[in-house]
């Protein structure tokens, strides 16, 4: 067994872990990062990035197949898609990014150990790798083991029943696809296959899709799904799958394949966390505002610490923990964490929703009154501002609309900087862009919107 000693050991090289390791390396801390797979974690390998690649491919294909029926006067002969090639292109992007992360870790002086980590005690971890075991002793250990798709006992993964991982590597477009779970992952991938030509059915147990978002935000998505020919069954429970038929309590659904996206669970098993008796917060590791767990010297970041399970939250936590370990004065004091659903149209939320806090009000500006939205044939959706009545401070920004994900930066910046309605209203927004909707929403909140 090889023995390594280091200052900081990061378990998991996902977005939280690798950022933590890079920052720790930059700060001169002797850092080791362990992962059983390639650097980049779920996000780069089987999550955010590959799904965005597939969404893009499906969008392009859909545009071409539907160009002739559109108002633009474009006609095209029937395009086809070789999904195998699409997946290869997507894999190339993943390769490039994970390779890049490996390079960044190397540049920061971080040592990468390949294998599965298991705690021996609060300061020691044994990594079982292909080339034997490595024992690593560290002053500080950062748990960044992430999350994994939840499996349904009556729809175990395998065969025609897939998790998001398999769905991202399908080389043929299934004739029919049932998506069990109408959260953002299911809707993103369901939309992809609908656009690629599958007959898609969404089966959601709650009474509406994206149950964590409010109805106003999800309505344009629901409408678009209908336009795409997707059947949405809400309040419906899937039961079993056999011979291309998914049985539900509301009847049978044609499904050559089934995609189960009913949530993600924290990866806390199999790494010896139980023996450490860390205080848990339900299924997640409980952390304080410095991401410290109940055991001194052990930190946890990212999905393993609970919702919101978002790569950028994990990254920010990882960066903060590294700086904390280097003796910087930091703490988790973020005002808002933006979240994006890459559905069609996209949904962005940042900060408080209407009614979430007392003493707040909200105002919306619809894209139907936005010139730029019309010119892209996508005037569905709106931008909404939530503000505190007492001082007009902007406490929440949400929007739904095609391509609105890029506006998330404006949303989070405004809230993090402590902007008030007056600030955004008085900021010149470029014309013609969708971002004008942000300014207009604030103007509307102040009682003097110009374009509505």
């Amino acid at each position: 067994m090889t023995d390594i000693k280091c200052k900081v050991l990061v378990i998991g090289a996902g977005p939280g872990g690798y950022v933590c390791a890079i920052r720790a390396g930059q700060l001169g801390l002797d850092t080791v990062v362990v992962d059983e797979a390639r650097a980049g974690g779920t996000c780069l390998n089987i999550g955010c990035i590959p799904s965005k690649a597939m969404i893009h491919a499906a969008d392009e294909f859909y545009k071409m197949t539907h160009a002739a029926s559109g108002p633009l006067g474009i006609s095209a002969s029937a395009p086809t898609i070789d999904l195998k090639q699409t997946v290869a292109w997507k894999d190339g992007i993943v390769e490039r990014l994970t390779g890049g992360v490996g390079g960044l870790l190397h540049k920061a002086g971080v040592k990468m150990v390949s294998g599965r980590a298991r705690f021996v005690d609060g300061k020691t971890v044994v990594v079982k790798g292909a080339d034997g075991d490595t024992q690593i002793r560290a002053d500080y250990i950062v748990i960044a083991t992430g999350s994994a798709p939840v499996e349904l006992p009556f729809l175990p993964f395998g065969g025609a029943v897939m998790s998001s991982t398999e769905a991202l590597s399908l080389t043929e477009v299934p004739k029919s696809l049932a998506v069990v779970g109408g959260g953002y992952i299911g809707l993103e991938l369901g939309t992809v296959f609908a656009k690629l030509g599958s007959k898609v059915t969404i089966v959601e147990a709650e009474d509406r899709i994206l149950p964590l978002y409010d109805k106003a935000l999800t309505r344009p998505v629901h409408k678009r799904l209908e336009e795409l020919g997707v059947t949405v069954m809400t309040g419906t429970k899937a039961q079993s799958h056999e011979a291309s038929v998914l049985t539900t309590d509301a009847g049978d659904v044609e499904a050559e394949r089934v995609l189960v996206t009913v949530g993600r669970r924290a990866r806390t098993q199999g790494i010896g966390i139980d023996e450490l008796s860390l205080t848990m917060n339900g299924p997640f590791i409980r952390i304080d505002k410095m991401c410290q767990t109940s055991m001194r010297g052990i930190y946890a970041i990212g999905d393993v610490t609970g919702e919101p399970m978002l790569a950028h939250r994990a990254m920010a936590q990882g960066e903060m923990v590294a700086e904390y370990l280097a003796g910087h004065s930091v703490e988790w004091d973020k005002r808002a964490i933006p979240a994006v659903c890459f559905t069609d149209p996209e949904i962005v939320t940042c900060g408080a929703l209407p009614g979430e806090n007392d003493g707040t009000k909200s105002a919306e500006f619809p894209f139907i009154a936005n010139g730029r939205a019309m010119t892209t044939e996508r005037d569905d959706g709106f931008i909404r501002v939530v503000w505190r009545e007492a001082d007009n401070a902007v406490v929440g920004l949400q929007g739904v609309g095609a391509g609105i994900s890029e506006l998330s930066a404006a949303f989070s910046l405004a809230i993090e900087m402590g902007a008030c309605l007056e600030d955004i209203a008085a900021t010149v927004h470029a014309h013609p862009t969708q971002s004008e909707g942000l300014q207009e929403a604030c103007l509307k909140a102040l009682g003097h919107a110009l374009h509505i």
Partner: protein
Amino acid sequence: MGIYAIRLPDVGEGIAEAELTEWHVKPGDIVKEDDVLAAVMTDKAAVEVPSSVEGKVVELGGEIGDMLAIGSVLVRIEVDGDGNEDASAPEASKPTPAPKEDKPEPKPEPQAKAAEPARPLVKTSKPVARAKNTKPLAAPSVRARAREEGVDLRQVPGSGPGGRISHADLENWIASGGIQQGSVTRGKNTGVEEVRVVGMRRKIAEKMAISKRQIPHITIVEEIEMDALEDLRAALNRKYKDQRPKLTLLPFLMRAIVEAVREQPELNARYDDDEGIIYRHGGVHVGIATQTPNGLNVPVVHHAESGSLWDNASELTRLAEAARDGSIKRDELMGGTITITSLGALGAIATTPIINHPEVAIVGVNKLQMRPVWDGQQFQPCKMMNISCSFDHRVIDGWDAAVFVQKLKLLLETPAMLFVEG
């Protein structure tokens, strides 16, 4: 004439009461706006409460040591014009309802600010009205700076829309002595570095352990008036400038030791405690504790009794350099009969030197500094220096040790005696 009640302001989020620690006024006093009325202490900080009006103090709201609820009346002041309560019916200090609920609406705050821009921002106990459980409006960089400075931003008045705190607001707050909560959240460094004790370090460790384990030390500290010696040293250095090596204090001290051990040969010795024999040496071989890059080294000036001041000075310099650059020979590190340890300007006022086993005495030199000395009529500025000497109490009695130290003192204070044949 009216009565104006000044209430205990909200001195921090989540604090319901504060201890009255100091009154700066008493009934009958005339106070001006911004005069400090009282100081209160919360579990987080001490806070001074200024007056927001001008007038005569008519009533105090409590005794020192009382716990006052936030919002309760602290002082009643008789003011020109209308007060903020009915003078005829001063409410007996009835408990005020919970602090937060009855706070003014946050809205008026910016206007109040605008109306009195010249006011010093701080000391104000004017609560920065902010809705309960809301975080202060401030950019991330302002928040980071506040963390660095240990400032609780919730107490800093903000000048921006919605009370947003700018860098300038934070500057002002700190500059005017804003309350620092000491809540800097810096990471605890619980790391432990393992350093193996090897080579020179291990030798030093073993040697020190032997010395300290075997030898019961007695240490005597005495002060020495150094003006005469310093004058002599300066005069000699001036006279032989460029011709002879510059004299430090050490050659004189070596000379004094040579003189002193002439009368007390038991101090210039090596005690073989295994054999039970003390070897009293005729030659005075003075070890000089020297800091080198690898640690402590003790090169020995052999036969200090036979060298002149300058001989010893140059030998000392040569040995010290050789010790530092590692070229020193083994026999130059051995055979000492007594040791001097000096940290120069770092020499503190007293030390407890550890004897260089198997020697029996060590002379520690502390720093030279100007100190006032009572000459019978008045204090005189004198160049004073302490020496801290340790002795092996197995073979040296306290009496002998004291005699030796007094002899050194006499010789160093009257340096002529160093050179007069006795």
